[in-house]
C-alpha cells in the first residue's frame, strides 16, 4: 500500500514540476495554454432573491458577449471571458463553499457577486485568503469594504451613501433653485431599514444645520396614518424625508394629499416609493415626490437607452439597478485585464485598484467614474434621484440628479407648488 502511494505521489510531483516548467517556458503573449479568463460568479439563482440574481446573470452575459464579440481581451491575445456561475441560494454558507470550489477546482481568475450583502460579506474573506480579486457590483452593506481587504472592489454606492446623497441632492437643489431649506421632518417605518436611515439623517441634519422638527417612526402595518400626517401638518417642515414599504407609502401619500400637507419637497428612500403600484395607486397625489434609486431607464447617459433596448429585446424586461451595476462590472474587469496584460491574480488585482473608468462601454450609470479608494469602494458611486411628474404621458419617474444624468429637457419642480 505504502509503496503504491509513494509511487503515485512521485508521479504527481513529477507531472507538476514538468507542468510548471512548461507553463513557465511557454511564450507569454500568446497564452497558448490558457486563452480564456475564467470569471466565477456567485449569485442567487434560486431562493428568495432568484429574480435579482437572474437579472445580474443576464446583464453579465450581455456584457461578456459584447466584449468577446469585439475581440476579447487584446492584451491577452484576444482571450475570451468565460463565465462560471454558482448559485448562492442567498445563503452565506453556500456562497463561501462555492467560492472555495470556484477558486480551487475551477481555478477562476476573478470572482464577482454575490448581491446579498449577507453572502458577500463572508465570501469576500475567502477571496482575500486566496488573493483572488473579488468584484462586488451591488451588495450595499457598508462593512463589506471596511474589513481592510485588498481584493474586494465594490462598484455601487454603499448603504450609508444613500442618505448622504439625499442630503447632497437637497443642497444642490437649494443652490440651483435659490430656495432655502431650514427645517426637516423624518417619518419612517419602524423596522431596521427605517431606523437605520433615520439615525444617519439625524447626524446629517446636524452637520448641515437643518432643524429637525419631527422624528416619527410608525408601524408599517398601520391601518390609519392620519395621526402621523396630522403631526407632519402641524410641524410644518420644509422637507419631509420618508422610508416606507409599499402599502404605507401609498396610504401616507394619499392621506397627505387629503390633509393638504405640502412641504417644499417630499423625498422617498426607494422601497415602497419605487413599487410599481405606487404610481397607479396614488395618481396625482404623488406628483412632485422625489425618490432615490440605483438607476432609472431614462437616465441621460450615452449608450444607456441602447443598452436598455438590447436588454429588453433579449430578456423581455427593463434594465434595473442590479443589472446595470453587473453590466458595468464586466467592462471594468475587461478594462483592468487589458491593463494587467496577465492572468496572474495579483496583477489583475493591482490593475483593478488602479482603475479609472470614465467613458468606456458600459458606463451607463448615474455617476461619472469608477475609481476605487483604499478600501476598494468606488469613490464616485452614487444613486440617482427621480421626480414623479406628469409631462404628458401620465405619471412617471424622471431622473433629475446628479445633474449630468438628468433627463434632457426636464426642469425639476422645486419647491413643490
Amino acid at each position, binding site marked *: 500500500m505504502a509503496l503504491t502511494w509513494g509511487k503515485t505521489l512521485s508521479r504527481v510531483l513529477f507531472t507538476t514540476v514538468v507542468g510548471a516548467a512548461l507553463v513557465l517556458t511557454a511564450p507569454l503573449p500568446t497564452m497558448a495554454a490558457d486563452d480564456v479568463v475564467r470569471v466565477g460568479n456567485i449569485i442567487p439563482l434560486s431562493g428568495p432573491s432568484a429574480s435579482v440574481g437572474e437579472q445580474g446573470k443576464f446583464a453579465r452575459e450581455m456584457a461578456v458577449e459584447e466584449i468577446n464579440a469585439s475581440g476579447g481581451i487584446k492584451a491577452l491575445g484576444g482571450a475570451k471571458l468565460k463565465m462560471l456561475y454558482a448559485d448562492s441560494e442567498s445563503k452565506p454558507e453556500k456562497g463561501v463553499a462555492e467560492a472555495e470550489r470556484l477558486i480551487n477546482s475551477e481555478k477562476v481568475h476573478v470572482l464577482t457577486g454575490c448581491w446579498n450583502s449577507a453572502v458577500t460579506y463572508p465570501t469576500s474573506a475567502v477571496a482575500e485568503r486566496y488573493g483572488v480579486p473579488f468584484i462586488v457590483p451591488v451588495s450595499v452593506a457598508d462593512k463589506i469594504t471596511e474589513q481592510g481587504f485588498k481584493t474586494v472592489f465594490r462598484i455601487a454606492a454603499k448603504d450609508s451613501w444613500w442618505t448622504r446623497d439625499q442630503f447632497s441632492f437637497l443642497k444642490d437643489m437649494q443652490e440651483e433653485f435659490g430656495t432655502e431649506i431650514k427645517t426637516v421632518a423624518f417619518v419612517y417605518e*419602524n423596522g431596521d431599514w427605517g431606523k437605520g436611515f433615520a439615525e444617519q439623517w439625524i447626524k446629517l441634519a446636524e452637520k448641515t444645520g437643518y432643524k429637525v422638527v419631527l422624528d*416619527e*417612526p*410608525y*408601524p408599517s*402595518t*398601520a*391601518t*390609519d396614518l*392620519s*395621526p*402621523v400626517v*396630522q*403631526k407632519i401638518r*402641524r410641524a410644518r417642515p420644509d422637507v419631509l424625508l420618508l422610508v416606507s414599504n*409599499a*402599502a404605507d407609502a*401609498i*396610504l401616507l401619500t*394619499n*392621506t397627505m*394629499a*387629503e*390633509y*393638504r400637507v405640502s412641504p417644499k419637497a417630499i423625498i422617498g428612500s426607494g422601497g415602497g416609493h419605487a*413599487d*410599481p*403600484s*405606487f404610481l*397607479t*395607486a*396614488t*395618481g396625482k*397625489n404623488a406628483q412632485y415626490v422625489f425618490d432615490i434609486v440605483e438607476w432609472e431607464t431614462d437616465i441621460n447617459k450615452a449608450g444607456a437607452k441602447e443598452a436598455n433596448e438590447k436588454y429588453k429585446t433579449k430578456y423581455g424586461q427593463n434594465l434595473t439597478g442590479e443589472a446595470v451595476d453587473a453590466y458595468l462590472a464586466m467592462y471594468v474587469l475587461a478594462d483592468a485585464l487589458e491593463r494587467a496584460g496577465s492572468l496572474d491574480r495579483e496583477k489583475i488585482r493591482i490593475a483593478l485598484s488602479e482603475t479609472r473608468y470614465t467613458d468606456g462601454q458600459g458606463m451607463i450609470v448615474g455617476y461619472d467614474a469608477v475609481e476605487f479608494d483604499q478600501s476598494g469602494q468606488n469613490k464616485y458611486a452614487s444613486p440617482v434621484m427621480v421626480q414623479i411628474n406628469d409631462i404628458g404621458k401620465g405619471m412617471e419617474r424622471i431622473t433629475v440628479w446628479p445633474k449630468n444624468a438628468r433627463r434632457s429637457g426636464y426642469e425639476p419642480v422645486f419647491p413643490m407648488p
Partner: protein
Amino acid sequence: MIFVLEDTINGILMGSIYGLTALGLTIIFGVLKVINFAHGSMLMVGMYVAYWAVALTGLHPYMALFVVVPVMFFFGYYVQDLIIKPIFKAEKEVREPITVIIVTTGIWYILDNLTLLLFGPDYRILQDNPLRGKMLEAGQMLISVPKLWGFCAAVVTAASVYVFFQKTRMGRAIRATSLDREAASLMGINQYKVYNIAFGIGTASAGIAAITLVPFFNVYPTVGVLFDIKGFIIVVLGGLGSIWGAIVGGIIIGLIESVAPQFMTATWTEAIVYGLFLLVLFVKPSGLFGVKYDW
C-alpha cells in the same frame, strides 16, 4: 386644544369603522361560538367586490352596497353551509369545536392566496370616486368625508343588526340558538340554518365595512390581516358576542391610535392598545359589554 378635538373626531370616525370590521366577528362568535379566523379575508373579498363594482360602473361607492351586501351574505351563507357545517356535524358533541377554527384558518389562506393568484400583489385604490380625498373644513379642522360616511354606516349597521336580533322571529331564533343550541333545536329551530344565516349576516357586515374602507384604503390580497388582528382585540375589549361592544371597542382603539400619537411616537400607541387588551383580560375577561356568566 383644537388639535385634540380634531384628533378625537378622527379617532371616533376611524374607530367606528374598526368596530364595523369587527362586527361580523362578534356576531359569528356569539352564535356559532367559533372564532372565525377567515374574517379578515372575508373583509378582503368584500373590498375586491366593492372595488370592482365601483371601478367598472363608476357609481358612488355606497351604491355598491346593493351588490356587495347580497354577494357577501350568500358567500358567507354557503361557506358555512358547504364547508363549516359538515365539520360541525362531525363534532356535534363538542361545545366549542376547535377543528372549525382550523377550518376557518384554512379558508383564510385559500382566499388570500386565490386572490393573489387572480389579481396579483398589486395595490389598488379607487381613483375617481365622489368620496376620494374629500374633506370637511371647520375652521382649522379637517375632517375626512369618507370616514364620516363610514361612521354613519357603522352606526346604522349595528343598529339594524341589533333590531333584527331583538324584534324579528329569525332574530329571536338566532338568539335562542346562541343561548342554548340544544334547547333551541328541541323547540323546533333548525340549528344549522340559523348558523348559515348568522354567518351570512357576519360576512355581509364585513362587506359593509369593506365599502366604508374602499374610498380611502388600499385593496390588496393580504389587507384583511391588518384588520383581523385589530378585530380580535376589539371584540375581546368590547365583549365577545356583543354588537355594541364591537363598536365601542373599535372607537376606543381608534381614539388611542389617533389622540395618543400627538403626545408620543406612533409606534407607542400599539403598545398602549395591547396593554389595554391585557388589562381588560385581567380585570374583566368578559370584556366591557360581555356577559359575565357562561351560557
